């Protein structure tokens, strides 16, 4: 445990934040809402001596619409998405997904950007320091074996963002600011599929906004599997989107270390797409619901999405 004086910095501008972090590459962690991070910290999975709070930065709160593109600021609280008329009219599934995250209390603090970067989860990882010592540290906490699979090959912690599947299924891009400037990336591309390091953004970079095109005529169905109707993380979240050219994108979380994405040009291909989606999800028994059941539900949920979209 780090016993030195712990820092909590609250920069007012992006520049201030980036300049600080560029010169303290390892010794910090960004915090937005913190509803995920602080629980991980409480459990000892994050042991940083310095938190850099982004919630005071106005540039991360600027909503805009330009050239048929909507820029949703990363600091938008999950509970605020429904207040935005553009989102309400064009991307209602995003609101549905956001409203399915945790509980209303969490959504009142948690941000959209934070939800995209929500740490992967596993029953054998999201535990106290003492617990992880008792089980023998796993791959995700610097151990050399995955407790679930009993091998040292890979970490299968689940990607659990509920908003990411909806956004990715609508080809969302993100504006990422770093000391060198701002880049536009495909949201899908930041996820590595490695349970230990699930995101490939550089440690200092900050998601500024989430960008969605408004002229594609997206229609999305979102479904989430969880045991309770509130509080719970996802055991399977599915978004299926079609656009006005008939393209179909399936994106799922909760069943793989990264979002599982399958695209097709026409909904006639849907059955094959479903098969691929099931094949591509590398879920293991690290959730309160069994792997077998979650796998089975992928098929059912995908069918239900199809029926609602095209039926």
């Amino acid at each position, binding site marked *: 445990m780090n016993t030195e*004086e712990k820092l909590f910095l609250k920069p007012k501008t992006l520049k201030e934040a980036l300049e600080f972090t560029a010169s303290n590459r390892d010794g910090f962690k960004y915090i937005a809402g*913190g*509803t995920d991070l*602080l629980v991980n910290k*409480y459990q000892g999975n994050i042991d940083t001596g310095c938190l850099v*709070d982004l919630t005071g930065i106005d540039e991360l709160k600027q909503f805009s619409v330009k050239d048929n593109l909507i820029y949703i600021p990363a600091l938008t609280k999950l509970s605020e998405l429904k207040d935005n008329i553009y989102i309400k009219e064009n991307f209602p599934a995003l609101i549905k997904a956001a409203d399915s995250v945790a509980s209303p209390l969490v959504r009142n603090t948690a941000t959209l950007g934070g939800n995209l970067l929500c740490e992967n989860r596993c029953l054998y990882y999201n535990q106290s320091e003492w617990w992880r010592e008792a089980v023998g540290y796993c791959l995700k906490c610097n151990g050399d074996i995955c407790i679930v699979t009993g091998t040292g090959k890979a970490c299968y912690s689940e990607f659990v963002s509920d908003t990411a599947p909806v956004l990715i299924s609508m080809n969302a891009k993100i504006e990422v600011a770093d000391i060198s400037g701002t880049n536009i990336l495909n949201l899908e591309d930041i996820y590595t599929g490695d349970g230990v390091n699930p995101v490939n953004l550089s440690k200092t970079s900050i998601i500024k906004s989430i960008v969605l095109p408004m002229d594609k005529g997206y229609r999305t169905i979102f479904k989430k599997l969880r045991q309770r109707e*509130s*509080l719970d993380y996802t055991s399977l979240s599915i978004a299926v989107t079609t656009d006005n050219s008939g393209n179909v994108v399936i994106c799922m979380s909760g069943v793989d270390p990264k979002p599982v994405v399958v695209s097709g040009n026409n909904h006639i291909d849907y059955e094959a797409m479903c098969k691929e989606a099931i094949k591509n999800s590398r879920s293991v028994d690290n959730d309160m619901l069994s792997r077998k059941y979650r796998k089975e539900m992928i098929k059912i949920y995908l069918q239900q999405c199809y029926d609602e979209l095209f039926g």
Partner: protein
Amino acid sequence: MKQIKLYINNKEYDFLVKGHEMLSTVIREKAGLTGTKLGCEQGSCGACTVLVDGSPLLSCIAPAIRYDGARITTIEGIAVNGELHDLQKKFVEKGSIQCGYCTPGMVMSILGYLNKNPNPSSNEIKEAISGNLCRCTGYKKIIEAISEYVSEKNGNALPDKKKKAESDSEFSVVGKPRSYIEAKKKVKGEAEYADDIRIKNALHCKFLRSTYPHARIVNINTAKAKELPGVKAVITGKDIPISFGVLPISENETAMAVEKTRYIGEIVAAVAAVTEEIASKACGLIEVEYLELKPFFEIEDSLKDTGENEKIHHQTKLNNNIHKTAELRFGDQEEGIKNSELSCKLDFKFQGLNHAFTEPHAATAYWDENGLTIITATQVPHYLHKYLAKVLEVPMNRIRVIKPYVGGGFGGKSDPFPHEMIVAHLSRLTGQPVRVRLNREEVFLTNHGRHPTKMTMQLGMGSSGELKTLDADILIDGGAYGSFGVVTTYYNGVLLQAPYNINNFGFRTRRVYTNKPQSGAMRGHGAVNSRFAVETLIDELARKADIDPCELRLKNFLDSNTLTVGQFRITSNGSAESLKAVMERSGWKEKFGKLKEGHGIGVGCGFFISGSALRIHWNEYPQSVVHLKIDMDGRVVISSGASDIGQGSDTMLAIIVAEVLGISVDNIFVLAADTLLTPIDLGSYSSRVTFMAGNAAKMAAEEMKSKILTAVASEFKVVEDELNITNNKVFSNDKSVEISWEDAIRIATKKNGALQSGGHYNSPKLGGDFKGAGAGLSPSYSFGALVAEVKVDVETGAVKVLNMWGAHDCGRALNPLAVEGQLEGSWHMGLGQAMSEEMRYHEGLLLNGNLLGYKIPTSLDTPEFDTTIIESIDPEGPFGAKECGEGALHPSIPAIANAIYDATGVRITSLPIKPEDILNGLKLLKKKKKNFSGVK
């Protein structure tokens, strides 16, 4: 450290806070506003909710520095000049507050939500509080309070549905719905729970817990920990090695592991230090050398001969880990089943459960000229008193146990606990007060919850639908220690001999030790799982015989005033009334067998003891004693050892005494559960308090009344029998005497000063004289029934419980509001066990020791409860009252499972009910159908 400014409840504060300190800590520890509660510290229970600029915030996951300059409102800022906010008034009035621990967070959540949406629908209200877990109320009365507040605020007052004519009641206090006497204090966040009480100069205690399920302790090196600045004491098992356990027959637990550890999470060492942080750090510096022993995790492993391997406890009789076998037989079950017209045999499996009360265990201990005082969240001050004396080797007259407000128990605070022994000893060692607060994970490890269970049960029925033979073979997983386990072993069997008349009945229960946190007593103790099995078998037989399952039950209920096969004395019995009530309320006849596929209705019944007739510790002291004192001021002080843990027992005592003395409850003060000041009551377990302490209070009040009337009669030279007290007045039938209560007390106290009286209760001698006859004996039994309606998604197996109609015979509802609250809370807990709650392990290590993984149903998962109180007027209960806090749970789980059967044809034999199991069941049915049509 950073200086920040907070405006809390309109007061400006300057705090020096640490970089990563949470707002909840600042509010509780630095501002001293302990109305903000900690239940999980991980944002999953909502108890810590405050408002920041009017918007709700989980303060346990909010870095304090972020809120520099912010306007914060805590529960203490809601009432203005002592006047409750209208919403708080509704919470009080509607009985929305039981233990009160979730209340502040609940109130803050909804107030914050209403700032944004002042006129929410009922569904929106449910959604708004779905991040706030309540374990007591089933949310019903909370939602009612909010709905009424909202309606009135928006100018649409709801018609008061429940107003009954009250004038014809024979009582003036009994039977009137009444909020708890302490409800206002709780809703204002002023009620102090164990961790809210600050004793000056207290040290903090933390524990080092075993990471091995079964291991010899070879060596413990505490040197480095002791050297850490700020550490005052480090102790290990050898420092307080005397064993304890709530039952004298299994006192096999020690405060810390002495020679070996028996579960992952057992306390191995403890530290007292000036701060929590230092204490934690010191725990990390303790080095323990273990020698691993073969662990036993599953019931099956523990049944077997251990061979060369070391047993968990050397005291077990044979070379295995069977702790206790209980077997009773009345008649020949094998023969009985053989001769049955119809019979059914099923295997059942139940996961272990945790009470998951919202307030984690906490205690503070200190020593002074009077010896030890410990303030602790307990249901059993007396047993703790006894065992502190034993373990610390101090006479009982040097120990004082104080129970403050307790945030729920449900059996989970009904044992003496290691942490209580440890802080008491650490305080003695250091000469300073020592406080401890368990985190949620530690609460789960402490456990003492419902036993994981496996059983085979068979039930045989005669040709005209009479239940004839019941045979059960039950295995329960006790975990590492005894706790209440011997009682649980018996209860699993003996509590099957009612509510039905079954004369050929037998069971065998075996409790085994395993290397897991110990199991113990939990709401509905011992009989919940076996009740599930019986009610399932009855449903199955009814289906086979094509009889309505309600009708089948009605045909088989025991009468009132009868004996069961094992000689339980049944007096009042509202079984049939309960079942008929839920049939009517649910529209059973219109629905049963008539709902579409995927939509079903099911029923269950149950019964429970109203206090155990036999005491745990054999002595001749009464089971409950209550004292009354009235001084010149006219106020009545009730002094009772009974422990109000949120179930309302303090209010119950006040009601009884007020009724007898003919005065208002406002004129009564309840002094409870302080072993220095109050006479002994055995504690709040086995649903004994209303019956036993209630009777003791009634007796004390009657004696007091007689004293007062004797004095008045002598003063006015009238016959005592002519006098009575009602409405705070003492009067004679001819009205020649008519004086106020205060005047009467002045007369009664003028010669000898303050009046005193005492009452006590002892259960009558009951039961047969065979071995095991004592288990399950009670002076009275409660009865109940419940109908559940469900919808099952046949594609996903997901179940939605739509409605639960429950009825419970509580003898007489002394306080109908409290009775309803107990019933609804029981049904909610049943819903949890049915649908989502379980303690899941990985090689002895609990996988879901937090409120995210341990799934208490939220407001959105909880259906409407329809609540009916049945009053059978018990001949021996105080004013006819008996238990209502546990028995109501029993019928709820099988009712849900039977409804699933009705909806799908899938028979549920394993809890919690998993959608996966339903899907598998459906597949099997499909296959069978196919095969059947194939044959055709």
